[in-house]
């Protein structure tokens, strides 16, 4: 937690709390709106000098004000990026986390959320989500998905009730790469700070030959790619061109006069240039050992960081994987319908799904994120397989041997890293967005519910005020609350 920025911002806080000027009017901008990431101390409101009141919680609680500060106090904090803090405080200002830790001075008049007995987790991040930004949702051409999002829709509310504050929707891979996918936040009831990034990921299909099937059988979730080499060749050609472009660009930047005119490239090539520049993440699906080895070689050859999805046989491919710069997005229990090993394999070859797939990746030092079996929010009644059970999926990684820390990171900080939004979300760190779950139990306890959800520092969900789960008591040995059966 101790970073240079901590000192800087703590200093700022001190300045805010003890500034000598009389109270200045609050800024006109909505305090719920996330500010730009660069700090602007000059525009921040200054507070009255009153040393006594700064840390006086009781006083603050008794006087609700329109203070721009919110403090969640006396809670067990799971920052993910750092060890657990007991009886700690998170201070929020203008949608960002201003401070995290123990013995943090609280500005006078700050809104106080009592976190006694509660657990604070970063909001969960769903790497694949459907319809949490509204139905009929699509963004083609110049359209921005953020401009279509419906922050009233009930699936967003359900996602928040499940602790998911950030999600990516859309995107499907092609050999030439598709720049697609919208990353946004569940800013229920507001479009302020909803969009994070459009066309967020470069989806590449690299010679995957087996269709992806649901663990429940039925039609494939994703079709098989052509088994010929042409698709792979397309990808590699584009990458070669992207490498050439980057060389030419470097030469042009170094000496424009000598290089002549600035280099140009077509859109597909430019997408790969962005990927090589590290601007957008590259997602490639690879399930079997052969596919995983292929992707690792591709990563090695072009020094391209790749996030591998659906890596069912990663546990058996670790020596091959070591060649590439890889991260993983997987479901820890994505397995064939009848539990059988894949057909057409030599019996001597280790293959198929293993519960310790995620754990073996962790032990080999890889970053992995977890996604649920289904990217939807299902109201059909089969529990534990959709977005609403995201933490349950992380539990399955732990069940297979992953550490508790990696389990929590797999639905918070790791997806943020894989999506390249970890400067904004994914952990409870100073300067990050205040996307916080106030939970009644530990984040990965299967009984745990988010009681309060904050996104960009704004309360967007409260269990008691929402009808979804307000009848379920924290102590399950006490009856369900209310007359939930009467109104049928």
């Amino acid at each position, binding site marked *: 937690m101790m970073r240079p920025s901590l000192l800087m911002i703590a200093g700022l806080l001190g300045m805010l709390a003890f500034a000598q000027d009389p109270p200045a009017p609050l800024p006109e901008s909505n305090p719920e709106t996330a500010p730009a990431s660069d700090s602007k101390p000059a525009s921040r409101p200054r507070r009255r000098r009153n040393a006594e009141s700064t840390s006086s919680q009781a006083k603050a609680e008794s006087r609700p004000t329109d203070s721009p500060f919110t403090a969640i106090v006396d809670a067990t904090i799971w920052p993910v990026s750092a060890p657990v803090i007991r009886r700690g405080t998170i201070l929020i200002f203008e949608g960002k986390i201003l401070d995290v830790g123990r013995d943090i001075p609280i500005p006078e008049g700050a809104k106080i959320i009592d976190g006694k007995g509660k657990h604070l987790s970063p909001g969960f991040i769903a790497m694949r989500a459907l319809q949490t930004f509204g139905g009929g949702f699509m963004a083609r051409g110049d359209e921005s998905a953020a401009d279509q999002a419906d922050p009233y829709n*009930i699936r967003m509310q359900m996602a928040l009730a499940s602790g998911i504050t950030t999600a990516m929707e859309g995107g499907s891979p092609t050999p030439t790469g598709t720049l697609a996918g919208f990353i946004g936040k569940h800013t229920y009831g507001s479009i302020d700070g909803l969009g994070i990034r459009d066309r967020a990921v470069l989806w590449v299909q690299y010679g995957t030959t087996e269709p992806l099937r649901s*663990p*429940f*059988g039925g039609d494939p979730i994703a079709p098989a790619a052509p088994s010929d080499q042409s698709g792979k060749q397309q990808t590699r050609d584009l990458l070669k061109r992207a490498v050439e472009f980057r060389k030419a660009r470097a030469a042009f930047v170094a000496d424009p006069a000598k290089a002549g005119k600035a280099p140009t490239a077509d859109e597909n090539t430019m997408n790969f240039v962005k990927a090589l520049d590290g601007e957008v993440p590259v997602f490639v699906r690879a399930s079997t050992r052969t596919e995983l080895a292929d992707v690792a070689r591709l990563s090695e050859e072009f020094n391209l960081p790749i996030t591998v999805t659906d890596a069912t046989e990663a546990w058996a491919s670790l020596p091959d994987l070591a060649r590439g710069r890889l991260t993983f997005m997987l479901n820890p*229990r994505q397995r064939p*319908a*009848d*539990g*059988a*090993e894949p057909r057409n394999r030599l019996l001597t070859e280790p293959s198929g799904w*293993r*519960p*310790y797939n995620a754990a073996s990746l962790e032990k080999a030092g890889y970053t992995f994120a977890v996604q649920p079996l289904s990217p939807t929010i299902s*109201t*059909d*009644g*089969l*529990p*534990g397989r959709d977005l609403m*059970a995201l933490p*349950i999926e992380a*539990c*399955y990684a*732990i*069940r*297979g*041997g992953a550490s*508790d820390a990696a*389990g929590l990171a797999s639905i918070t900080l790791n997806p943020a890293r894989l999506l390249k939004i970890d400067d904004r979300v994914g952990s409870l760190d100073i300067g990050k967005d205040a996307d916080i779950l106030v939970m009644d139990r530990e984040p*990965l*306890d*299967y*009984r745990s519910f988010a009681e309060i959800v904050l996104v960009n520092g704004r309360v967007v969900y409260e269990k008691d005020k929402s*009808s*979804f*789960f307000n*009848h*379920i*008591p924290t102590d*399950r*040995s006490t*009856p*369900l609350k209310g007359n*939930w*059966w009467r*109104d*049928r």
Partner: protein
Amino acid sequence: MRHLLSRFALVLALCGAAWAQLIQAPSPMPRADDPVLAIVHGRVCPIESPEIEDGVVVVRGRKIESVGKFGEVQIPSGARIIDATNRVVVPGFLEMHNHTGVSLSDLNDMVFQVNPDLRVVDFVQFDTPATRNALSAGVTTLLTIPGSGTNMGGFGVVMKTWGRTRDDIVVRFPGALKIAQAGNPERQGGDLGAGRMGMNWIIRNTLKEAQVYHLAWEAYEKGDTKVAPQRNLRFENMRLLFKKEIPIAVHTQWFQVVQSTIRILKKEFGLDPFVDHGEWEGYLNTPELKALGMPVAAGPRGFDYDRRQAKFIGIPAAYFWRGIDRNSIGINTDAPVIPQEELPLQGTMAIRYGLPEDVALRALTINPARMIKLEKRLGSLEPGKDADIAIWTGFPLDPRSRTQVVIVDGEVGYDADRDGIRF
């Protein structure tokens, strides 16, 4: 009961043909020279008695010999010791609604609207990937039943998930009659039985015929009549229902359907049905179910999303908190709708949506055993019961826990160290 059974067996022998009989696995009582196994230092949850912190479970042959505190229970010399330090020892789980261990394409013979003459036992497989996975998830007993394509799919079988031969795994046949009163059987168009009125008539009519058949045979067996009625294979197994030796697993999911289950199967024919595939708002029937002592196996849907209230109502929790007592509630998967190895997850989600933890554990052990009238043999850790035991790394319904060792009929069927972690 024993008297009746033996008399029944005698009658059958006299008839010269064993048409209907309860096939029970041999399950011999342990002998002194049977191998002995002792699970020590675990946190033992016997289910029917309080938890034991540092416990011992001694197994001889296929049966549990003793359960108790470490130091208080004598561990026979020469016993194979399984150290369960930091582990949780619970009975193997039972599942009352599934289609595991059989070929799915053989589950439904839908030529007739009712098929009480069909039986699952003829095509049960053992040691399939699905039963192996189920075993590794601590599931040791299954009531595998026919599909719900018709109003009576046939008779299911109670079987273990692990054994050396097929005869070894079959606990009892027939396990239960499968009746479906609405939903899936409605697919046939045009004929009688396309709607619920016709379907329930067919069910009642079939039960009535079976009842007449049973009474005729009973009269003959008692000596009240002299001429033996004609044998009818169609109704032979159904006699066991009227003798109350086996229950009916009823695919009954909605409020109205549960009503007809209560009205027809329980009240009109006096049989032992249990609500299987309990879903949606069927829990509104709990006062009546409770009064009649009818148990409920809820699932595979774990919650009912009530659109009018915008509320996620946990189905096992709803049945429980509306009044079904803690001994009468079960949880199922309808595998492969939910994979068989995720039966514990069904329990997990039942707790998440409001069922108390201890009740969820009962709902996977002693309660389903009671539903199929095998509570004297299965479902808890008690001396004399089948040695079906799962050793977990933590509370079994926490999805972060997995099994380390699973014992079926006294033998280690699954060992994570030996076999690799399967699930």
